[in-house]
């Protein structure tokens, strides 16, 4: 008989992130398919009442919390102690958690401490005939595996963006507090602050509907024999401003920065999509001035609808990588797109 624990941390403002609701959806789905199983909610944060209330209608038998100022910030030692305490109070066998950067750091260590196993970056979890199986990707999203485990506890880190968020309603949840006595050694790491790029400089937006991808073509000589980098910059930033899309790039374009050429200053290697870059999740993706080569399109694994604008009718996008390829000049098209977005908003 499984006891499924949804383990989540609150955000700084005390709320629950969408990724936590997605993990809850996965946990609740397992609970529903496993006859006789129990669902327990475990929350960690400075204060967890508001978060617990926000999902009060979910079919959990118990809400557990570890709270206090020591648990407001992400820190390995205290997060691990809190997760361990909640696990013990819940007597869980399967722990489902959102694979946020905070939990990604700590859950494998907790699994080790408790003699269990962990699977991270899980993109699907299901149960049939009393058996749980999970899906995850291997070799940089090049192949997908489905696996089961006999060991318990089994920690399952669910990749943000891979599930629908649970829509269970709010109410009043009774949270049972679990005490954690921290030692000074566990508080040796101090979080001194958070540094974030300015809102406008923040071009990577994991929650955006649309991924906008720029390729090296934006910096290449155009039909008139000239490059038009300042114009490219204006078009790209204009589009991002109007749509709040997330900005991705080909490797060739971000690499140009290192070679001392005139390039787009708002792009860094963090924007790179592909086999040696990121594999973000967005409902739609629009590629511009990019050739759509295999090492690049590997990064599009989790982009559902894909369109591309390239001058080359034989580029990779044409060969089954995109749903629609517009063989056209991206400068001209994006100019019109931006104009149209400006008049409509």
């Amino acid at each position, binding site marked *: 008989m499984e006891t499924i624990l949804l383990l989540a941390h609150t955000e700084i403002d005390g709320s629950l992130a969408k990724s936590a609701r997605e993990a809850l959806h996965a946990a609740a789905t397992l609970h529903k398919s496993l006859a006789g199983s129990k669902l327990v909610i475990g929350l960690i944060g400075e204060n967890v009442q508001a978060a617990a209330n926000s999902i009060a209608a979910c079919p959990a038998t118990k809400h557990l919390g570890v709270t206090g100022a020591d648990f407001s910030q992400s820190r*390995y*030692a205290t997060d*691990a102690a809190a997760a361990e305490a909640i696990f013990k109070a819940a007597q869980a066998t399967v722990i489902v958690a959102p694979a946020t*950067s905070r939990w*990604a*750091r*700590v859950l*494998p*260590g907790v699994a*080790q401490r408790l003699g269990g*196993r*962990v*699977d*991270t*970056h899980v993109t699907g979890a299901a149960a049939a005939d009393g058996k749980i*199986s999970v899906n*995850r990707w*291997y*070799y*940089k*999203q090049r*192949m997908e*595996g*489905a*696996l*089961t*485990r006999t*060991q318990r506890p089994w920690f399952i880190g669910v990749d943000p963006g891979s599930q629908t968020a649970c829509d269970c309603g709010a109410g009043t949840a009774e949270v049972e507090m679990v005490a954690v006595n921290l030692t000074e*050694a566990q508080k*040796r*790491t101090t979080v001194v602050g958070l540094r974030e790029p300015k809102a406008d400089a923040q071009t990577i937006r994991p929650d955006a509907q*649309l991924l906008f991808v720029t390729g090296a073509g934006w910096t290449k000589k155009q039909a008139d024999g000239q490059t038009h980098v300042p114009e490219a910059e204006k078009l790209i930033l204009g589009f991002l401003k109007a*749509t709040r899309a997330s900005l991705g790039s080909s490797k060739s374009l971000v690499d140009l920065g290192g070679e001392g050429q005139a390039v787009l200053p708002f792009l860094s290697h963090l924007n790179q999509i592909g*086999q*040696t870059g990121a594999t973000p999740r967005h409902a739609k993706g*629009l590629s511009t001035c990019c050739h759509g080569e295999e*090492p690049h399109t590997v990064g599009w*694994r989790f982009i559902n*609808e*894909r*369109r591309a604008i390239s001058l080359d009718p034989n580029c990779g996008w*044409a*060969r*089954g*990588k*995109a*749903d*629609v*390829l*517009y*063989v*056209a*000049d991206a400068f001209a*098209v*994006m*100019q*019109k*797109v931006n104009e*149209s*977005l400006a008049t409509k908003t």
Partner: protein
Amino acid sequence: MSTAYQIIVCAGIVPDPLQTLEPVASPTGPALKNEMMLPAVLDPWAGHALYEAANLAKNTPGSKVWLVSLGPKAKLQQVMMTVAQRVPFELIALDGPASGFTEAAEVAAALAEAIQTIPGLDKSKLLVFGGWESASRGAGATMQMVGERLGIVDQFQGVDQGNLPEPKNNPQVGMTNMRTVMPALQKAKPTKLAGEGLTFASVTLPKQMRETKIVKDKSADDIAKEIVEWIKK
């Protein structure tokens, strides 16, 4: 006076990213087609960790770097031919599978055990480095487990200022390293990873082909209209 560090870098090996990879079933679970024939490289994120470690050691006199690596001996040797040219380290080799389908907890147990056998290990000077995710299993789980096994509860991920260049090949460093690399490979401890309790139901390549509609002769205006409609949908 600055503290000298003992820096241990855990780094595996992975197939060269240029290679085409295809999953196959083997008696011991999933594997890659022609796995032993695929050229290997040092796992990229772990490679960064090695270069960071070497940089820290260089700037902190008296420090030393160990590289702990688990992989098939012959492949480790091939990878060390280039890696050993880059930065000074002492190799501790474990002879076992480098597959992405191995179990992180078992790998961590083997690595932690190897680390504990290092003579003169001083936990007050110890820093354990590693990649935050491998390019094979891609789980980002092994290092935390190694840390737990060694009693290290100050753990950090994604530690990177992103401004350290890849070191150039230095034949002299290579010569010095090779003096310890070859003996380390010779006495590499055979390591079995049983994948206990773990069963793969399937490993498959994704269906990649889409039916691409190629739009050739539309004006920029019409295309823009279509795109805006699609974005707003």
